């Protein structure tokens, strides 16, 4: 039994505690960088130990915790978790580097970032529903502080909205988990919170929750789904996201978009897809998912088009991109599902660049309103270079990771969800539209003299963005390292779903 994962989770936690106690900014950020760096190292070791061909859970470990409720500290990774673990351990150190110049209460700032790392790693590796839920909740707290201490003018509204909105979602999810747990207990008569055991017993559920209105199975399914799609977030439960992003500090936005949203997608693959075939009305559920997905894609796109604030635009683009994840998952074809997983991974990298760009512009020009910017490329060539790369990746340019994901999703979902895929394709043009339009107005064109003297991004900022860009291109040209493990896991994942199609196709 290996202990990589618990080590990887523990180190940022310890690092956070140390960071809180440090006095100077120097110490704080060094601690943050070192401890997140160590986690990165561990995750790389895990990657090297990871057997791509093996479809099940690997590097797993289990420690007893609360026997009376059958709760164990059990961790492990497979094709769903490993890439996201990698993503987290890549993004956080880069965020720390990007935020190297933070001056406001640095020790708290870096400490909270490390706490976030602990939380997301826990979510992506826990195999026990109880533990999963705990990490799921813990993640909220540091983000609440990141927004409400370092945030913008409406930070209080945004922070509390974020907290309560997602908290309600996770509580609903918790109820569904209760039901699953009880069901498993009735069958085995042994308390057990192990995710896979609970999911395994789901098909054996029966009966109506509300007679002739909704069956227990469907209710549980929808409860879980709600918990996840609010986190993703999917239209119409997305409105907390733009507010949170607009107010959050850059580092906060990066973590929020790159990692926290992925928790929702992770849940989709870990929980929803395996259950889908066994729910009482899979057709309806698939349709529901597909509608949510496409709605998010198009709605997000058009909303992004309408935004005046660059960062808000990026926020809506996240909604639109996460829509692809839902769509791919709904198609229940191995490659579409692994495409959706890859979309999560690549969006994590891409959105990092986008939000960092917004941060640099905000910091340098003092505004993010597209209309007030203009021609900043003249004074910020380095930024323009990485930012353009990020935007192109975000609009799905081939050769960048985003394209691989969207291609896989669209091309493989069509067989099961033709209508929805066509609608999604329709969105692509507009996606390109708002990205380029924003670039044209904000970055290119004649320099807006009102901005006064503006300077290019600091080297550490540009560096961390450049690293992300390189990764985006690398995975755009050679996705196999992560894609293979995703496909390996996705194939058995949808085996039971073979032949299922939505109500509307």
């Amino acid at each position, binding site marked *: 039994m290996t202990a990589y994962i618990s080590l990887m989770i523990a180190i940022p936690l310890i690092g956070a505690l140390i960071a809180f106690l440090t006095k100077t900014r120097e110490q704080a950020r060094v601690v943050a960088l070192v401890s997140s760096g160590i986690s990165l190292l561990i995750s790389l070791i895990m990657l090297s130990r990871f057997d791509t061909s093996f479809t099940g859970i690997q590097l797993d470990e289990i420690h007893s915790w609360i026997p009376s409720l059958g709760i164990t500290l059990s961790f492990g990774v497979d094709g769903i978790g490993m890439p996201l673990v990698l993503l987290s351990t890549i993004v956080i150190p880069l965020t720390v580097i990007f935020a190297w110049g933070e001056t406001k209460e640095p020790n708290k700032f870096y400490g909270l970032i490390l706490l976030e790392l602990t939380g997301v790693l826990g979510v992506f590796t826990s195999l026990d529903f109880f533990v999963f839920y705990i990490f799921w909740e813990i993640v909220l707290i540091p983000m609440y502080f990141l927004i409400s201490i370092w945030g913008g003018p409406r930070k209080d509204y945004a922070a509390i909205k974020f907290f309560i909105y997602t908290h309600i979602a996770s509580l609903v999810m918790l109820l569904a988990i209760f039901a699953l747990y009880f069901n498993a207990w009735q069958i085995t008569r042994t308390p057990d919170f192990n995710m896979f055991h609970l999911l395994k017993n789901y098909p054996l559920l029966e009966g109506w929750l509300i007679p002739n209105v909704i069956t227990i199975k469907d209710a549980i399914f929808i409860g879980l789904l709600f918990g996840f799609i609010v986190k993703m977030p999917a239209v119409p439960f997305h409105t907390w996201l*733009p507010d949170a992003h607009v107010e959050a500090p850059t580092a906060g936005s990066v973590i929020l978009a790159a990692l926290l949203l992925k928790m929702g997608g992770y849940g989709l693959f870990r929980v929803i897809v395996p259950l889908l075939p066994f729910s009482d009305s899979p057709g309806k559920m698939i349709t529901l998912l597909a509608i949510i997905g496409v709605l998010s894609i198009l709605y997000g796109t058009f909303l992004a088009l*309408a935004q005046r604030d660059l960062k808000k635009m990026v926020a809506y683009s996240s909604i639109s991109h996460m829509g692809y994840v839902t769509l791919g998952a709904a198609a229940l074809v191995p490659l579409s599902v692994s495409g959706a997983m890859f979309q999560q991974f690549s969006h994590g990298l891409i959105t990092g660049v986008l939000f960092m760009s917004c941060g640099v512009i905000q910091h340098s020009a003092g505004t993010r309103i597209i209309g007030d910017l203009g021609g900043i490329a003249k004074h910020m060539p380095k930024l323009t270079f990485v930012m353009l790369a990020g935007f192109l990746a975000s609009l799905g340019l081939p050769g960048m990771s985003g394209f691989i994901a969207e291609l896989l999703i669209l091309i493989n979902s*069509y067989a099961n969800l033709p209508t929805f895929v066509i609608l999604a394709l329709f969105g692509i043009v*507009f996606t*390109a539209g708002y990205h380029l339009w924003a670039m044209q107005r904000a*970055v*290119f*064109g004649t320099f807006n003299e009102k901005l006064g003297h503006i300077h290019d991004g600091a080297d550490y900022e540009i560096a961390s963005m450049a690293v992300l860009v390189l990764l985006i291109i690398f995975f755009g040209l050679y996705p196999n390292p992560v894609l293979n493990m995703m496909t390996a896991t996705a194939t058995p994942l949808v085996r039971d779903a073979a032949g299922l199609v939505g109500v509307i196709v």
Partner: protein
Amino acid sequence: MFSDYAALIVLLPVIAFVLTLFLGKKLYSGGALLPIAAIAGSFIISLGIFFEIYPDGMVRQSLPWFANFNIGILIDPLAIVMLLMVTFVSLLIHIYAVGYMSHDPAKPRYFAETSLFTAAMLGVVLSDNILQFFISWELVGLCSFLLIGFWYHKPSAAAAAKKAFLVTRVGDVLFLAGIVLLYVNINEIIASGRFSVVPGNFLLQFSTMFEAAKLIDPTQLTYITLLFFGGAVGKSGQFPLHGWLPDAMEGPTTVSALIHAATMVTAGVYLVARTFPMFAATPGTFVPGVPDSLLVVAYIGGFTALFAATMGLVMNDIKRVLAYSTVSQLGYMMLALGTAGAVAGANAVGISMFHLIGHAFFKALLFLCAGSVIHAVGTNDIREMGGLFGKMKITAITMFIAALSLAGIGIPLAGLRLPIFNIGTTGFFSKDAIIEEAYAYGFERGDYIPYAFAVIAALLTSIYIFRLWFMAFTGKPRSERHPHESPGVMTRPLMILAVFALFFGFTQPAFYSYVSASFDFVMGPAYEGGGIEPPVIVVLLPVIVGVLGFLISYAIYYKRMLDMSKIISSGNPLYKLLLNRYYEPTIGANIIGVKLTHDVAAQSGEFVDRKIIDGLVIDTIIGKTTFFLGEAARKLQTGVVQNYASVTLLGVGLLLILLKLGGGV
């Protein structure tokens, strides 16, 4: 041995791109030599491969990529001629650019991007599968975006770049949809056991596609091919997605030359040519015996040829005229694929590609000449030029040659049943063939509309190109600048191109038979010619209209027999319509782009999001109500203890009632 290094054809320019981008500043003239060397290398390799595989070999290399896709190289006759043309023309343009861009501070970026541009185009040409084709295709689009917006500080340039990318993007999405549909259909026939991918081949390889095309449901195939054609329409600026091409003039002239001659726009035609077997396999439901997709291709092409030419007549920006001429010529190529495809099978590919390559030479030449003129005069407006002939002879002469070639001047001796081969410019050979095929098509299918388009377009072509030449080079100077001939680094390429513009045409027969053979392995050997001997008048007509056009321009713009300014100033509606480009920019950008998409769709979405979902539901209904309740309930706590006691006793009473309701005793 060259074929072993086929991959280098693409990789060399890519490497050059990276090096120039990061080291360019330190090197001579912004590192221009790197891309030049790289592309020269690509050219040499291509040439080597050509001699290796001629007459009937081909190069196929392929590696698995991700999922069930692959990356690979396919060099068959169709590809190799494109390779030679692209590398050669692009090489000349790069050399020319050393002079043309000499004063620009951002040279490294320029040469890096053009190098990548070439690489992407080469990628398109070399692809052995539709996905890789699409990816390179998109990268071409990206580079065009970067290069058109090269002077990004000019708002017009930034806007043009965006327009180019978006409009072609519309096409790209159709193309992608086509790929999706194809992929699904192939999987379907595989699943149904009627088809299986040859071991060692891959799902989306062209060879696989062609085999599968025979089994796919015909209507589906029509959709697929039409979607592909949609992509081609976008990239090759066919109607109705032609609007971006004239605006693309915002970039440096050399870039325009690249886009119009060597790269980008030809990709669309190449796509149709590349997937020609699939087009040919579609059923003929409208005109019997004419595959539907080819019919559409023919009509769109023909119409575009004419439609663009009309606008070419009135443009005053020297580059705009050329741009519309490009659109129109691309129309010819599509027309050729459509009509000849219907009557002469795979020969269509040869015919169309021949025009494509010929056009590449004389259009590149035209643009470079224009560039040289602009370089000298410092304006794009032909009304401010004039009398340049004396000052810049080389430019003037080479441009005149190009004009002749474009107008398709020549003597169809063979067409006149004389025992001699035809004599004429490259354009003459390629375009006549197309028009004759259009006639043949009309003759066999009783549908002469494409032919009509072609002939009228030919007339207009000759008129506007000579109008351009006369206004620019003859008459008295209309600006007080002191133009001078361009440096050798710019004029040498002109001369070389001029040679090709004149004499490339003589390779016609060999070219046809060689290139048309590309698809023998799917469609079987193509039968010769249009199948009929066209009457003399048909053979002569193209030349006649060409000459006629020349004479008209000569009369109006040189002899000034009738004063154009009257017609123009009298603001007649037709002229307005043409000058405003059929109001395409207004409709496209303003109405569809801004009004509908942004103002209507996006803003209403914004309203729903902020005001209804967020404002109404979350903030008001949930938030405000809760607070209100809180305040109200709070007031119950009066602080007077009797009320508390009363409430307590009241509670007891309530419980009693409840229990009664609850069904107690």
